[in-house]
């Protein structure tokens, strides 16, 4: 029976999640495997596991639960070990590294900020800042909307200006929030937002961080910020030590 791994915590973690539902349908029960000073939060791995919504949600929920009680190194979704022994084997082998990371992340959480633009506010800014676009728009308007080519050209100019503003405002988000956090890292780019930045924040200063978010909102009405957190520090776990070298190949058998 292969083993699904949610995350790694110290075995002294005061509230390791057990008896809650994990991935799979029906949900596999979450268990804890201890080895030395470390504990792995696991469950049986369902056959044919795929990144379905409920499974992603289960992964995130287990880690939220664990993260609420103490430091945890969240695994990326979908990590499956051949069996429990393989998990404890990894814990034993890389104990120093994981203990160091747990210590470094103790008391810290991730806040992920996604920024989008309020389009109307952005267009206002584009028009206000570019006499050229303003004039072009006015000309089109007087020509009853303008020809297809005119509209295309205007739209292209506007799109370029909007893109510039997006880049500018993406930098603003990071620059203005970074001082309120311990670390920052840019998240994967995707559709739907202009900035996606994760911040590592001490639980004790989370209020100050959220206040900084409010300030950005107030100072930049064209920016809409979505705050997600506190989260387990997905973006700050770092990969294992000397990945490709020793440990990697030797254990690859499964």
């Amino acid at each position: 029976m292969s083993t699904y791994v949610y995350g790694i915590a110290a075995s002294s973690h005061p509230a390791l999640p057990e008896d809650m539902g994990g991935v799979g349908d029906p949900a596999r029960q979450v268990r804890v495997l201890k080895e030395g000073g470390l504990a792995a939060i696991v469950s049986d791995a369902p056959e044919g596991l795929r990144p379905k919504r409920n499974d992603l949600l289960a992964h995130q929920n287990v880690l939220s639960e664990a993260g609420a009680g103490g430091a945890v190194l969240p695994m990326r979704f979908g990590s499956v070990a051949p069996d429990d022994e393989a998990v404890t084997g990894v814990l034993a082998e890389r104990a120093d590294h994981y203990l160091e990371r747990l210590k470094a992340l103790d008391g810290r959480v991730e806040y992920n900020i996604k920024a989008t633009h309020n389009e109307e506010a952005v267009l206002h800014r584009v028009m206000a800042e570019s006499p050229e676009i303003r004039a072009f728009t006015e000309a089109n308007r007087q020509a009853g909307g303008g020809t297809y080519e005119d509209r295309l050209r205007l739209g292209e100019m506007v799109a370029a200006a909007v893109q510039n503003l997006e880049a500018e405002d993406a930098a603003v988000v990071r620059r203005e929030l970074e001082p309120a956090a311990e670390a920052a890292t840019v998240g994967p780019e995707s559709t739907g937002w202009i900035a996606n930045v994760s911040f590592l924040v001490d639980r004790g200063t989370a209020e100050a961080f959220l206040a900084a978010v409010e300030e950005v909102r107030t100072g930049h009405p064209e920016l809409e910020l979505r705050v997600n957190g506190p989260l387990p520090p997905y973006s700050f776990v770092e990969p294992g030590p000397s990945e490709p070298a020793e440990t990697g190949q030797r254990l690859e058998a499964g």
Partner: protein
Amino acid sequence: MTVVPAQQSGGGGGSSGLYDVLELVLDRGLVIDAFVRVSLVGIEILKIDVRVVVASVDTYLRFAEACNRLDLEAGPRKSPGLPDIVGEITESGARGKSKGALSGAADTISDAFKQAREEGEAEPRRARKTTASRRKEEE
């Protein structure tokens, strides 16, 4: 502010904010090379650069139209219609990109995103989105 629920509520609920953290769950977090990872074929669909979507004829025409209508006398204000517009760009962009190259897994994941986004973002749009995901399933 959205706080990810610490506990899953029954009946598939409790996904508020899931869409916003999915890419962290899938693309960040600890990777241990001794463990196998579930196949995430099609996950590239998440990584389409938003700027690619902006640079399209549809977008140009839409911008031109929006500028045409923009009332410069009124100051910048919150537009209640915006989230809809953004949603549409995002979706049509993702659909365009994904055509042809998609495997079943990609459908699964994009549907997961879509579902999560629906629930996390805009309740009233559910009906329309459902049509979109149905169309997708035909592939």
